[in-house]
């Protein structure tokens, strides 16, 4: 039982997260910011109760790997082509506005070129999990904007994969790198295609096999990728995408427990390892947070006008996409220098909380802005008719 004793810190952190999860679910506010804050408080920047060790970093990595595996599983490129125009229009507006504002702001605030790029990518990617939860919890699924938001998240995921690929390529020969990735992806597609019947029959069993298979295949893929010197992040996404051609729902069901638990560890230990002594001023962080909220407002309103000719629609899109979350933290954990990690952490904490309240009370905003226009139109027509 020495192992359990050695993992004391992990157990303390998880217990705190359990309490936080209970409280945040009860209040229906996002849990991610509180996991990070808990990590900061418990970790080296705070009380120093919990420190990162090989056990916790292994679990954190698993969290990240399972998150990316889910991104792969959710890739439905064939479905995008059905409402291409809408997805492309909203996706491109969102990408350009937010990447540009994020990058220019970070660069002007004194980050280096590559740091600014990572801040911009984290600044750009809204949290898919929080957007979906907010749509469901606030009973907004029927709104026409809900579809736009959901597909926007898929588009962001695709862009994120490209960004991950570019960042992990680093100084390598891009062509060789692309060939390696495509070869990996190709092998997995072939395996999934020819092993489909075997996989489906395996997943239908009700013993330990489906869950064991899911866990091992994700871990083995990451391990093999690292052994061969290709980025494990990309290979795990590729595995998800290949497997999605067999029975994605079953894989999701079996991988969910791993993702849920390990991702919490990932968030809390991201907080634990944060180094507040990094030289980022409060002013810089405040500006980034304000801009993070404002730039999604700009992209949201532009999208609303482009797709529905309505600023109120744009506000609705905005309120549900303010929250940054898991992907921003993932980028910070993978590629962020200490000052970048702190900035992104603060941005995620602020935007996820602001976003959760904005989405809940979006009616107030839409009445204030575009709602007024909508009301001014019809009454005049009614009077003319009588």
């Amino acid at each position, binding site marked *: 039982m020495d192992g359990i004793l050695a993992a004391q810190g992990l157990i303390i952190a998880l217990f705190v997260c359990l309490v936080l999860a209970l409280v945040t679910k009860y209040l229906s506010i996002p849990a991610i910011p509180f996991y990070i804050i808990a990590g900061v408080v418990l970790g080296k920047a705070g009380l120093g109760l919990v420190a990162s060790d090989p056990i916790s970093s292994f679990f954190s990595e698993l969290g990240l790997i399972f998150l990316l595996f889910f991104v792969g599983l*959710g890739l*439905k490129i064939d*479905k995008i082509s059905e409402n291409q125009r809408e997805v492309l229009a909203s996706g491109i507006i969102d990408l350009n506005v937010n990447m540009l504002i994020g990058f220019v702001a970070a660069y002007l605030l004194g980050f280096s070129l590559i740091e600014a790029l990572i801040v911009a990518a984290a600044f750009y990617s809204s949290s*898919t999990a929080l957007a*979906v939860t907010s*749509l*469901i919890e606030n*009973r907004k*699924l*029927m*709104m026409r904007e809900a*579809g736009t938001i*959901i*597909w926007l*998240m*898929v588009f962001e995921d695709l862009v994120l994969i490209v960004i991950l690929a570019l960042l992990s390529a680093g100084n390598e020969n891009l062509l060789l790198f692309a060939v390696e990735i495509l070869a990996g992806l190709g092998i997995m597609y072939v395996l999934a295609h020819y092993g489909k019947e075997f996989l489906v029959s395996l997943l239908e069993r009700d013993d330990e096999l489906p869950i064991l298979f899911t866990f091992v295949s994700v871990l083995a893929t990451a391990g093999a990728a690292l052994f061969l010197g290709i980025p494990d992040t990309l290979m795990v996404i590729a595995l998800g995408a290949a497997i999605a051609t067999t029975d994605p729902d079953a894989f*999701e069901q079996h991988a969910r427990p791993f993702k849920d638990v390990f991702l919490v560890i990932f968030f809390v230990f991201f907080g634990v390892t944060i180094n507040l002594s990094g030289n980022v001023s409060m002013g810089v962080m405040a500006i980034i947070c304000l801009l993070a909220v404002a730039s999604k407002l700009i992209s949201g309103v532009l999208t609303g006008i482009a797709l529905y000719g309505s600023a109120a629609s744009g506000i609705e899109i905005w309120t549900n996409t303010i929250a940054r979350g898991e992907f921003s933290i993932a980028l910070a954990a993978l590629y962020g220098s200490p000052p970048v990690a702190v900035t992104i952490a603060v941005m995620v904490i602020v935007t996820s909380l602001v976003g959760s309240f904005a989405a809940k009370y979006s009616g107030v905003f839409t009445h204030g802005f575009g709602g007024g226009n909508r009301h001014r139109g019809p009454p005049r027509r009614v009077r003319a008719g009588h």
Partner: protein
Amino acid sequence: MALRSLNLPGVGTKYEFETDKGDTVAIFFTKAGTIQMYTLQKGCHTPSAAEMTPVEARRLGNILTGAIIEADQESVEIAFSALADLRVTIHSYIIPRAIAGKTIEDLGIRAKTGTTVIAVSRNDKNIINPPPSFVFETGDAVLVIGESDQLRLFEREIMVD
């Protein structure tokens, strides 16, 4: 009435249809397992919504198909549209004292009503496809299958015996 179904990545499946009078009903089966139903009255901009557990949704479904639900007795009507609109109903009943001690054969359930007892639940144990020699006890919950007319006959002929 045009029914559309749509797969929403990360959310679940959406079913939406517009009634002949122009109202819209949308149902979402979320990945979390809950079911959300939205109704939007024609000419209205904000839908109203209800969130249900799977059990609640099935209850609602039973009500909508026209089956009567009482405290301990409920029925499900299943329509197979591909089989010339074949409709069968499964109804549950609690065995009264009057027919306790008799077998399925004694009562002549099949001969008199055309219905079949397909399952009996007794003290939390389930007996599927009980034989004709099966003896009922007071308080047995039985599932009976048949057309709705046959079930009405069952209620009149057998349950009051």
